């Protein structure tokens, strides 16, 4: 078994930024494990531009954005293994993986960063009735076929779901000569960026059908058409509104799910709202020394925020590694029943002073669907902690209220908030220390009083 200080699972934008940050924070032995044949993750197939405005103050395409990090990883000589699938992570941070050149191998890591990204919800999850012909793809699969493999999946396209991937693919398929007949969206609003609605649909005259869904799939061998229907406010198809559209391709862009099978098997507690690990202010999961960042933690809207979050994860993992070195665990000899003795590591958490263990829960309420992190330790937190969250639906003229216990601390006015956009607020250590008794911080969306 090989030893590394830090093992990062995933070489996409999150993994790369985490690795770079950990190295810059003084960690020498870092290993990035990537399942694909190249670094960069899903960015490689996101060939459109619009990435990096926050990070680099310029508009890059996905592969260009990824390349900036890949070059940095190379420059810093961070070890990466490609074509490598991680099979298991133990709570003791033993990582089991397999690849064609090394076979199956185990690595003992002092810290692990989860950066596995997310996957698309498949058709089955929607349970759309009908046949199961060829021609139904998730939008990301089609994106890979077109942008990496260079193959067109079809000529007459309907897209279900108006998230950004769906919108981007509507334009991409059109540019490649396909006719995109409609983008249908179950909700009364699109979760995609306005910019994408305008530049991917309006520019090409592609209709966006809000409050519509696919209720039937036609064609036994290859898709021949779909039935679209309007839905009521509960998302149920309204009888009599059905409309058949002939098409040979249906692309599904109906949601992303963080890929946490490894985390689950490791016993890490997941947040049912984000479907990602529950983390503290250091982005540390409920399993000590295992951190998470990027889309495996919660689905992000902009890659820039992934990079930002990953940089923090790298920094905190580095801190953790250095701290555990500084306070080498006391090794105790314990007499076994049969007279043999075993060496075990003394739990360090139990010896921490109470103030270090005290954690404040963050509670998403009225209109807020989740927060990341889910808890904060006032003792361990840095000066400022960014809390990211999303809202459940569109809010006009509202405000974000932050409550320490019952007491309103911040009220931030907003003209509009939408579920498609990740929101954030800052919590300062100084402020938190003014309230040593609080157990919870609540974030809620409140209607704003009209000003006279």
């Amino acid at each position, binding site marked *: 078994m090989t030893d590394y200080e830090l093992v990062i699972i995933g070489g996409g934008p999150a993994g790369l930024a985490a690795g770079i940050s950990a190295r810059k924070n003084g960690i020498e032995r870092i290993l990035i494990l990537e*399942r694909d044949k190249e670094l960069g993750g899903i960015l490689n197939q996101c060939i459109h531009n619009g990435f990096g405005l926050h990070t680099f103050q310029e508009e890059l395409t996905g592969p260009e954005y990824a390349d900036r990090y890949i070059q940095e990883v190379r420059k810093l000589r961070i070890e990466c293994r490609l*074509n490598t*699938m991680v*099979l298991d992570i133990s709570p003791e941070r033993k990582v089991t993986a*397999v*690849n*064609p*050149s*090394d*076979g*199956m191998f185990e690595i003992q890591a002092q810290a692990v960063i989860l950066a596995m990204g997310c*996957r*698309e919800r*498949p*058709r*089955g*999850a929607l*349970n759309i*009735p*009908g*046949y*199961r*012909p*060829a*021609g139904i*793809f*998730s939008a*990301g*699969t089609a994106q*890979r*076929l077109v942008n*990496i*493999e260079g*193959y*067109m*999946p*079809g*000529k007459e396209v309907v897209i279900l779901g108006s998230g950004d991937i769906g919108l981007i693919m509507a334009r991409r398929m059109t540019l490649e000569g396909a006719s995109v007949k409609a983008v249908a969206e179950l909700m009364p609003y699109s979760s995609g960026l306005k910019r994408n609605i305008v530049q991917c649909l309006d520019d090409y005259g592609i209709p966006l059908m809000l409050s519509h869904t696919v*209720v*039937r*799939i036609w064609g*036994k*061998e*290859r898709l021949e058409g779909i039935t679209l229907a309007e839905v009521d406010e509960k998302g149920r198809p309204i009888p009599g509104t059905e409309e058949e559209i002939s098409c*040979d*391709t249906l692309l599904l862009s109906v949601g992303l799910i963080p890929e946490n099978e490894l985390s*689950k098997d490791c016993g890490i507690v997941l947040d049912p709202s984000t479907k990602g690990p529950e983390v503290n202010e250091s982005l540390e999961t409920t399993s000590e020394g295992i951190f998470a960042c990027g889309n495996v933690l919660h689905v992000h809207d902009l890659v820039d925020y992934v990079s930002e979050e990953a940089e923090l994860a790298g920094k905190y993992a580095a801190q953790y590694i250095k701290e555990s070195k500084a306070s080498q665990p006391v090794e105790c000899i314990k007499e076994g029943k049969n007279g043999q003795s075993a060496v075990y590591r003394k739990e360090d958490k139990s010896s921490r002073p109470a103030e270090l263990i005290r954690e404040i829960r963050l509670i998403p309420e009225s209109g807020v669907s989740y927060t990341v992190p889910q808890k904060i330790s006032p003792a361990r937190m840095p000066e400022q902690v960014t809390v990211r969250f999303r809202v459940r639906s569109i809010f006009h003229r509202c405000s974000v209220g932050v409550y320490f216990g019952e007491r309103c601390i911040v009220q931030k006015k907003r003209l509009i908030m939408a579920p498609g956009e990740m929101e954030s607020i800052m919590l300062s250590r100084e402020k938190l220390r003014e309230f040593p008794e609080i157990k919870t911080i609540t974030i809620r969306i409140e209607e704003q009083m009209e000003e006279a």
Partner: protein
Amino acid sequence: MYDIVIIGAGVSGCAAARELSRYQADICVLEKEEDVCCGTSKANSGIVHAGYDAKPGTLKAKMNLLGNERMGLLSKELDFPFVRKGSLVVCTAKEELLRLQELYERGVKNGVKGLQILSREETLEMEPNISADVQSALFAPTGGIVCPFSMNIALAENAAVNGVEFHFNTEVRDIQRLEKGFRIETETGSYYAKCVINAAGIYADKLHNMVSGRKLSIIPRKGEYCLLDKNAGKHVSRTIFALPGAYGKGVLVTPTIHGNLLVGPTSVDIENKEGVDTTKEGLQEIAAKAGKNVENLPMREVITSFSGLRAHEESGDFVIGEAEDAPGFFDCAGIESPGLTSAPAVGVLLAELLQKKLNLEESTSYNGSRKGILDPRTLPIKERNKLIAGNPAYGRIICRCESITEGEIIDAARRPLGACSIDGIKRRTRAGMGRCQSGFCLPKVMEILARELQVSQTELTKCGGNSKLLKP
């Protein structure tokens, strides 16, 4: 002229082919699809029934019992996954207890071993997620689950290795009786055979009626299913049946052999023999009924739904044997549930009948054992690493949800009767069957399959015919 032409490469046809490959005979299997296991055999519950359902004295009852008994040995000989997990028929209403008792007695009459009526407490101890309304349950320890694809494919491969020819994409259009034997007209030409086995599933009536005046009538009885994520796979550990009604065994909940949870089927007679579509009503019915016997079913974990057609013959029983007015034409028709369970016995029965008819002699070169696709996960680490060192493709995971390597996919394409479609790869290896439903692995599987078949990716199909995946 072939000695025997078998029409249909489903589980019954392939079981017959495999059992007949013991003999010196020229045998050919004709299949209208691009692969084996494309009809009813691919879309069912994957259950090995204990045998208490069928009326005593029927062929169904007999074949079920024999098939169940033989399944263990057959699964070892042919290396396909089968586990005897046991099954429970749950009774949730006091007034139905009598019917449960009847079922028990019928089972005993049929010769089912180990049947037991359980108390409410015993049932809940065995399966804590069973409905709190449970009154009693019939426990059948000989019930089991099998991978229907692997079983069908294993039978076919073993038959092929022992000399049986398989002709795919060959739909039978007409059968004529000749003075000696039959002429079978297909899209790709005529076949001549001394004897015919009609294992055409949902179309067995059509074929039978081409040569016989004693008409068969097969009604497609649709069954829809929902397959749940492996996260839900341990919700129950045995097959949980409802008390059977007029239309079969009702909606069941069962773990699958690969650790998913399967819920279904519905049961609706339809007219369209190609109607394997799922319906809004069907999917709603599953959701409504499944919760009756099992509590807190996580229906949010559905990863796919599908539908299959049971070949229900009007008489209600299997129709197996030589047509009275068409000597040499052997039916294997009306094979609805428990058809999968019965297949090992049905194959043997048909082989016996044909052996007598044609006076076949045993082949000296017959080899009844077959090895399945090597699953590296079953190997100890040392051996797995030896395998990868020798063939790095076994270290490259293509389907991340099911952990399927490139080595397995290549094997699936290269072995006898190798896969030639994406669904063929899926049924042989499980690549694409997991929770992302091929979202990630499809482009990679396409690349490997195109390379193996030496065709352009634009030629690849999902399941033969016009099911091309790309439209350049």
